[in-house]
């Protein structure tokens, strides 16, 4: 580095001086992610159930002269290490470097939310409280005096609404002010009994001039709450020998006072008492607390009814898959027509036969086959987004826990499992809401039984190829339900063998029903759809070209020559066509892909799968969409001459026997998730050995079930 450059560097630094790093903390489902989305222009995933955010995410944005980094932490009810998400948050708050905390609270349920707030107040950090959902609170007749609340807590409290985007500016402004000033001690006070003990310890520390890195009061509270870090520091000092008996006695007094042997319980009661006092001061209910039922209770009376609850859920799911098929089929002709036209148009401009085949038969027909299913995917994603954002998901977990429990699963397993219908990757991540490692692993293992969105195209294709339009939607529903049932049975088997042990308790918050805004729905669905299309344009396109190459090379000159001669001699057009098809078929068989397929064919033959289907399944390990594009390439090559059977659907119903199709679908339902999902699975499960377990487990199960499926279908006479 030259002298000149080195001199210039400090001038860049002032930017860092105005950098504010914020930790966003709050209980689950209070709208932390949505608040970030409103403050910046990020599109973090938002839902209406606890545990949407499972890992910390950083969002950067600028405001006036400041650069903000906001760390969105997973929601946590208290500083316990109950779930992985809670550990993530707790660890971050205690060990990482950040400037201040924004504590997001739900204004409509202040008392519960303040429980975490009071724990935060005992930390030696600058805090700003965001009273979120203030619009909703106002609607419910809850009035909060935020000025008085700021006064009483000693921390600024700002009314905001992430959904309506109000108060955001004020919040940021306050953050910059708090950042610029010295930290003020919060006004959190305990009961007399506890305050007395705190005073004793503070007096002792003062007397011995303990060299603390925060206030003596803070040290005392930390000692009383068994905070590891404080102990580590102070226990190395000489005063510790005298202090220790003092602390032991203090803790004993507090436990006695609260009639418990559990310090955490004692402090929870302390906080609760403090919060009740705050609430009594600052919250006013406009009208008399009405005894009539809230909207949520009215809806719950129907949706979680002991008798109708589960049938209603099943009906809604059935409806979703009907819509997916029926509505999704409407624009299909248009899209496939477009790609036919587009392929022909592009093809006519390319004179080189090889390049033309690459672009038209490889790229356009492969990618087109995947894009064709975008409408279906969108409908499925809308369904899942509604499930996530309305609050219905937790209700289903409530309804299904008893049933799930029989199969060794946890009611909350339902959440990752449903997410799995969209994509396995977020599903694996969301399994973190399960605290018990065994339950989590078990759930991880069966997530892939929930057919992901990428597998939908294959099902739509085959359902359409073998069934009339009237029943295809039902077939689709049946495939998904069968997958889920197989998953449950697999869970039972695993629970009885690999994951034996005690059951995790089921304690879960049931969020209020919320109607998602169109904007939120749009962003969620569009985000997912964009990813699907992006994948089609990049990864799938690449894979398609590879498949095309492998299926076209090496050229067998001999074969070509002998057929060219034959075709020339042929009398009728029809004869020519037949010969042409025969040539394509033979060429395909001697290609690299044909060789790979033929090599693995013996394995797949007992399942009734020919080498083409075997290749499609093998390609599907990369990504499930590739199955369709591979079939697209394989069957368009063989049939390109015959304009009548240009559509892949007809090609499939013509070339694949029904029993083989059944086996093929079963394999897809069960076998290894795609490459990217497998990586996430391995990470979440905690080791490469689990990947091999998953590989063995899914492959063996898929093979056995497909074998049974094939032979039973044959026996039934199809």
């Amino acid at each position, binding site marked *: 580095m030259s002298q000149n450059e080195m001199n210039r560097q400090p001038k860049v630094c002032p930017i860092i001086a105005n950098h504010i790093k914020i930790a966003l903390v709050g209980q689950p489902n209070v709208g932390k992610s949505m608040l970030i989305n409103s403050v910046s222009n990020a599109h973090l995933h938002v839902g209406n159930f606890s545990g949407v955010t499972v890992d910390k995410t950083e969002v950067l944005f600028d405001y006036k002269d400041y650069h903000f980094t906001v760390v969105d932490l997973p929601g946590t009810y208290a500083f316990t290490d*109950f779930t992985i998400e809670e550990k993530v948050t707790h660890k971050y708050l205690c060990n990482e470097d950040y400037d201040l905390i924004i504590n997001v609270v739900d204004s409509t*349920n202040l008392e519960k939310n303040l429980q975490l707030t009071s724990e935060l107040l005992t930390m030696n950090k600058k805090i700003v409280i965001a009273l979120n959902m203030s619009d909703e609170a106002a609607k419910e007749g809850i009035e909060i005096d935020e000025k008085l609340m700021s006064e009483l807590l000693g921390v600024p409290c700002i009314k905001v609404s992430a959904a309506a985007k109000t108060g955001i500016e004020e919040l940021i402004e306050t953050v910059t002010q708090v950042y610029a000033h010295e930290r003020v001690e919060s006004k959190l006070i305990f009961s007399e009994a506890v305050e007395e003990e705190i005073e004793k310890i503070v007096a002792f520390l003062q007397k011995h001039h303990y060299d603390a890195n925060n206030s003596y009061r803070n040290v005392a509270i930390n000692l009383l709450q068994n905070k590891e870090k404080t102990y580590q520091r102070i226990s190395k000092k000489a005063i510790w020998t005298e202090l220790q008996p003092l602390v032991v006695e203090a803790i004993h007094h507090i436990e006695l006072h609260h009639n418990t042997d559990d310090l955490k*319980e004692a402090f*929870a009661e302390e906080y609760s008492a403090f919060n009740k006092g705050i609430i009594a001061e600052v919250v006013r209910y406009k009208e008399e607390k009405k005894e009539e039922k809230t909207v949520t209770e009215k809806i719950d009376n129907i949706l979680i009814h002991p008798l109708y609850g589960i049938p209603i859920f099943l009906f809604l799911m059935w409806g979703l898959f009907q819509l997916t098929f029926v509505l999704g089929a409407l624009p299909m002709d248009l899209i496939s027509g477009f790609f036919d036209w587009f392929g022909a148009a592009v093809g006519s401009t390319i004179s080189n036969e090889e390049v033309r085949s690459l672009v038209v038969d490889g790229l356009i027909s492969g990618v087109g086959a995947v894009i064709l299913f975008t409408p279906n995917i969108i409908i499925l994603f809308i369904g899942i987004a509604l499930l996530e954002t309305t609050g219905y998901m937790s209700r289903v977990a409530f309804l299904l826990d008893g049933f799930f429990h029989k199969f060794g699963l946890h009611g909350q397993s339902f959440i990752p499992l449903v997410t799995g219908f969209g994509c396995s990757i977020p599903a694996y991540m969301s399994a973190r809401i399960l605290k018990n490692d065994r339950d989590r692993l078990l759930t991880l293992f069966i997530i892939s039984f929930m057919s992901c969105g990428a597998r939908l195209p294959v099902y739509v294709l085959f359902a359409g190829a073998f069934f009339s339009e009237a029943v295809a939607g039902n077939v689709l529903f049946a495939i998904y339900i069968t997958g889920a049932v197989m998953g449950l049975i697999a869970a039972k088997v695993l629970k009885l063998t690999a994951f034996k042990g005690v059951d995790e308790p089921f304690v*879960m918050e*049931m969020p209020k029903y919320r109607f998602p805004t169109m904007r939120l729905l749009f962003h969620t669905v569009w985000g997912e759809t964009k990813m699907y299309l992006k994948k089609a344009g990049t990864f799938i396109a690449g894979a398609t070209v590879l498949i095309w190459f492998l299926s076209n090379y090496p050229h067998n000159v001999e074969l070509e020559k002998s057929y060219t001669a034959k075709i020339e001699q042929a009398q009728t057009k029809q004869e020519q066509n037949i010969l042409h098809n025969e040539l394509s078929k033979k060429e395909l068989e001697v290609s690299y892909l044909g060789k790979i397929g033929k090599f693995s064919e013996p394995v797949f033959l007992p399942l009734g799968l020919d080498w083409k289907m075997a290749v499609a399944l093998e390609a599907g390990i990369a990504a499930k969409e590739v199955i369709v594009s591979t079939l697209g390439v394989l069957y368009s090559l063989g049939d390109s001459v015959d304009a009548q059977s240009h559509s892949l659907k007809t090609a499939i119903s013509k070339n694949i026997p029904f029993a083989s199709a059944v086996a093929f679908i079963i394999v897809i339902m069960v076998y290894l998730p795609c490459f990217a999902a497998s990586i996430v699975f391995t990470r979440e499960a905690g080791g490469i050995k689990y990947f091999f377990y998953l590989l063995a487990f899914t492959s063996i199960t898929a093979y056995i079930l497909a074998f049974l499926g094939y032979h039973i279908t044959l026996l039934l006479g199809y």
Partner: protein
Amino acid sequence: MKNLLNCHKGDKVKVTKINAEYNLKQRLISFGVMKGAEVEVLEHAPRKKTIEIKVGKMRIALRGEEAELIEVEAA
């Protein structure tokens, strides 16, 4: 002893003791289910496998086995 499981739908009761093991107890406490808290029983799933309760303004679902560990008295 009366516990949360043998309460009827619509009952409003007060928690007197939680007999759960450490982790579950912390969980319940962090949800606001602690000594002295007032709880309302909202709904039972089929065969009381799971029950829905209301603490303050928060609705919580828990299993029958866990509800059984929470001792209550009439509020």
